[in-house]
């Protein structure tokens, strides 16, 4: 590794602009003639729209126009869609209800967009939105996922009788039931995975610009995948053909999944720009973000885990209900199925697994991928169950896991995944050593003396990242391929531009992708620019989610670098009259191996463009592109251990230690990897201790601001102890697995296992607020 190459702890190139206020986010964009939008949103969770009266709103100061769903429909703008087809176990396709970008007949959750106001200022647009008079006829409401499936509940979409979207299964039910019947011990548990709000700090925003001269649209948007946004808006929503639609996702202030999806506002602002003849910008306020950003999690499950007399797991049976909210968001169907149930084998050799998943409509915001997306739900279920089983079987939690670890690879699970590499024992050992597991008993005794209850809990997670082999996901219902593209352009002076379809919204691609180039050519990272987030600059890409940018995006760069290197070596060999197989690249020069003959990288670049002396038949220029389609998922895994101290008088939980021992494969930049883990841990700890979305019975969102939704603050969290023990990923050229979601996946069960250990009561749901912990501790004493 060079000082700036793969593995180097390099400070980020992009930091300067963010630290000096020069970041450029969507809401920072200003174009001539730009006006501002406010959306009129439903205050009811379920209602029919009898009439919309915009007369007084249109007469308000500064108002340019007020547009509604009937006009949108008349202009041929299509329904929002879910892009992953799931079939129920009876073979029928999922029952997707219509989602209009502006509701024209029925509203189905509080915040459903009904009309858009365009005005000279944000304040005037909001004033006028208040003046739009909508006559609603309210309908009965259901917000709870279990209730929604019950008899006599409100019917949310005519397409989905009984609010059931699909009833899906995976695995072998017969073998699983047999193993459970024959088991020496069965651990049974009900698991609730609480509903969360993603809360990227930058609220969603969009700027739609219609150019009547060219009949062309430009969309600035807070997206994790601008190319996918362009594809979907063109192919399904009829906004504009792809060649007439440019999507730009400039600096984006965090995503965590919530900015993968194409929301109504992008579509409506583009359409409104054409209707009004002015560029239209909309920026969500935080309450709109709580109301309308796709939420995460919200599962209720029952689990049975069977053991033989040697404490080996013989079977796992899971029944899950997942709430998808009022409409099926873009990837909502794959989250509780292929991103969830395929990970139910965890780190363990389990011969038989069966999972049944029912998804339901409710009168709540759409639910889709949120950091981890399905894998946190699988991990929480499995690791709470393992901990519970260890307690029931009288084994230490580490011992039960060790007995059941997968120890040889590749390993085919009963639920599709083929694990390619890992060393779960190494992560477990590293975590136990770092936390000083052996010293816990003494620390517990010391705490007891102060009247405090100490507990320790672990979680051994695995996730499938590097989404994903296109043919495999296609066979499972995905509407798109999940490859990635890259183009490496070497300039005539030797500096390099890399166009990538990955998108950075905090992950540091401008640094880490440059490190991959620096490693290859020995050039400084400052001479490498990473270009992303603009469909006019980058031909195509699938974006950033599912910890895929390293494993898939960088692998595409790697492939393009292979081609650039091959051509550069041909040119160098020609210039030095050497054999191309003798050319090596060292310290920014192309050398004839074993001699002192060399040409600098910049000279090879220049030669490729002057084209005065190229090998016969070679095209001028030094620019190559590549598409990389992974051959397998990647499988980051690790062990997290949490030690807590609970005050039995108040129920307050203090995290004394939190240790993360991860296996991410090869690491490009440890500084950035650690940062990703810290952030994921905070989100997982937030889920376990603080966060929860709550609707009341009428469908009003009770947690719609930072005064009501408990975001983790600095003083809620400890400093983390993170370590890695890595096994390279065999399926991609860089050997990387991905690190973006691990923290959020592995941490919630470790924390709840620790708290339940401390209080001696296993009955505890997330978030483990002081009130809940206090009650649970008292119930046992």
């Amino acid at each position, binding site marked *: 590794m060079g000082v700036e190459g793969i593995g180097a702890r390099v400070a980020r190139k992009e930091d300067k602009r*963010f630290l000096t206020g020069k970041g450029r986010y969507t*809401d920072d964009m200003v174009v001539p003639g730009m006006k501002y939008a406010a959306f009129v949103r439903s205050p009811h969770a379920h209602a029919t729209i009898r009439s919309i009266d915009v007369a007084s709103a249109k007469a308000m100061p500064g108002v340019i126009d007020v547009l509604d769903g009937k006009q949108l429909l008349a202009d041929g703008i299509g329904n929002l869609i879910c892009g992953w087809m799931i079939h129920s176990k009876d073979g029928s396709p999922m029952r997707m209800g219509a989602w209009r970008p502006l509701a024209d007949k029925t509203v189905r959750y509080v915040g459903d967009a009904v009309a858009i106001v365009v005005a000279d200022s944000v304040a005037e647009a909001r004033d006028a939105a208040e003046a739009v008079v909508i006559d609603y006829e309210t309908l009965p409401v259901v917000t709870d996922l279990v209730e929604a499936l019950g008899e006599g509940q409100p019917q949310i979409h005519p397409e989905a009788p009984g609010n059931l979207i699909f009833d899906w299964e995976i695995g072998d039910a017969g073998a699983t039931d047999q193993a459970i019947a024959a088991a020496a011990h069965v651990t049974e548990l009900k698991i609730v995975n609480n509903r969360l709000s993603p809360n990227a700090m*930058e609220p969603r925003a969009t700027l739609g610009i219609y150019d009547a001269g060219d009949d062309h649209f430009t969309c600035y948007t807070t997206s994790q995948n601008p190319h996918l946004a362009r594809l979907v808006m063109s192919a399904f929503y009829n906004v504009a053909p792809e060649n007439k639609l440019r999507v730009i996702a400039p600096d984006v202030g965090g995503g965590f999944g919530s900015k993968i999806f194409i929301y109504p506002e992008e579509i409506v602002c583009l359409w409104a720009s054409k209707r009004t003849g002015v560029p239209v910008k909309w920026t969500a306020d*935080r309450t709109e973000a709580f109301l309308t950003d796709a939420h995460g999690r919200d599962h209720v499950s029952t689990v049975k885990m069977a053991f033989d007399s040697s404490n080996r797991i013989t079977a796992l049976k899971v029944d899950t209900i997942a709430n998808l909210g009022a409409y099926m968001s873009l990837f909502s169907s794959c989250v509780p199925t292929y991103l969830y149930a395929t990970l139910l084998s965890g780190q363990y050799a389990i011969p038989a697994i069966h999972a049944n998943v029912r998804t339901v409509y409710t009168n709540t915001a759409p639910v889709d991928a949120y950091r981890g997306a399905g894998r946190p739900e699988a991990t929480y279920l499995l690791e709470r169950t393992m901990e519970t089983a260890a307690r029931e079987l009288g084994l230490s939690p580490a011992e039960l896991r060790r007995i059941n670890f997968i120890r040889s690879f590749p390993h085919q699970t009963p639920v599709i995944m083929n694990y390619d590499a890992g060393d779960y024992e190494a992560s477990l050992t590293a975590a136990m050593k770092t936390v000083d597991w052996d010293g816990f008993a003494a620390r517990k005794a010391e705490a007891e003396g102060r009247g405090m209850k100490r507990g320790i809990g672990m979680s051994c997670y695995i996730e499938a990242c590097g989404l994903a082999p296109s043919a495999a996901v296609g066979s499972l219902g995905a509407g798109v391929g999940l490859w990635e593209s890259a183009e490496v352009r070497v300039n005539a002076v030797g500096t390099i531009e890399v166009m990538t379809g990955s998108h950075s919204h905090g992950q540091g691609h401008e640094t880490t992708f440059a490190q991959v180039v620096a490693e290859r050519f020995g050039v400084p990272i400052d001479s490498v620019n990473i270009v992303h987030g603009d469909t006019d600059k980058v031909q195509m890409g699938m974006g950033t989610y599912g910890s895929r940018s390293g494993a898939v995006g960088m692998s595409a760069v790697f492939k393009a670098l292979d081609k650039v290197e091959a051509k550069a070596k041909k040119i160098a060999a020609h210039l030095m009259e050497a054999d191309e197989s003798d050319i090596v690249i060292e310290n920014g020069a192309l050398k004839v191996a074993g001699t002192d003959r060399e040409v600098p990288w910049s000279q090879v670049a220049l030669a490729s463009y002057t084209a005065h002396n190229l090998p016969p038949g070679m095209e001028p220029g030094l620019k190559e592109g590549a598409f990389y389609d992974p051959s397998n998922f990647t499988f980051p895994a690790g062990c997290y251990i949490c030690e807590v101290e609970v005050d039995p008088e108040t129920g307050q939980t203090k995290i004394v230690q939190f240790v993360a021992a991860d296996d991410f494969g090869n690491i490009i930049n440890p500084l950035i990897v650690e940062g990703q883990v810290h952030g994921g841990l905070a989100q997982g700890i937030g889920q376990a201790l603080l966060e929860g979305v709550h609707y009341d019975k009428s469908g009003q969102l009770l947690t719609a601001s930072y005064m009501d939704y408990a975001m*983790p603050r600095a003083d809620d969290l400890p400093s983390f102890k993170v370590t890695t023990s890595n096994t390279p990923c065999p399926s991609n050229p860089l050997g990387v697995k991905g690190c973006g979601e691990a923290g959020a996946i592995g941490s919630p069960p470790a924390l709840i296992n620790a708290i339940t250990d401390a209080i001696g009561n296993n009955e505890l749901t997330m978030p483990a607020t002081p009130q809940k912990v206090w009650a649970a501790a008292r119930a046992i004493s």
Partner: protein
Amino acid sequence: MAKITMTVNGRQVSGTCDDRTLLVHFIRENLGLTGTHVGCDTTQCGACVVHIDGQSVKSCSILAAQAAGSSVTTIEGLASNGELHPVQAAFKTHHGLQCGFCTPGMVMAAVDMIRRHGSSLDEATVRTELEGNICRCTGYHNIVQAILAAAAETGGVRQAAE
């Protein structure tokens, strides 16, 4: 409408805005200084922190008209002659930022925190005082490290000078 004059980053500026305009919107829209961000509606997130007459203030919690006549420093005014302020530099060295959206408010709050506590700043105090700044990316770990490092560096320098 209010006609407002104030000093921003050392320059006198004037502008006209609605009486109800918040300082943050005056800074972003009238002055085009978009480094100061808006992340919530309820004065919780701290992405909008600026300095008014040397003290950190959430610029969403004050009307622009109330800041008339004041000296305001925004994130754009912190670096001098192209050199990062020590707190900015520490955030970079310690990877105290990811998406960068909360960063301007974090840095401005940290500068004021260090001004008040100097090199005696400890982790517990940093975490308590960051109560009003929310970050969703970093888990605060590296922000805390960066602030402690900057405090040690700049506080140490100040002590040496005294």
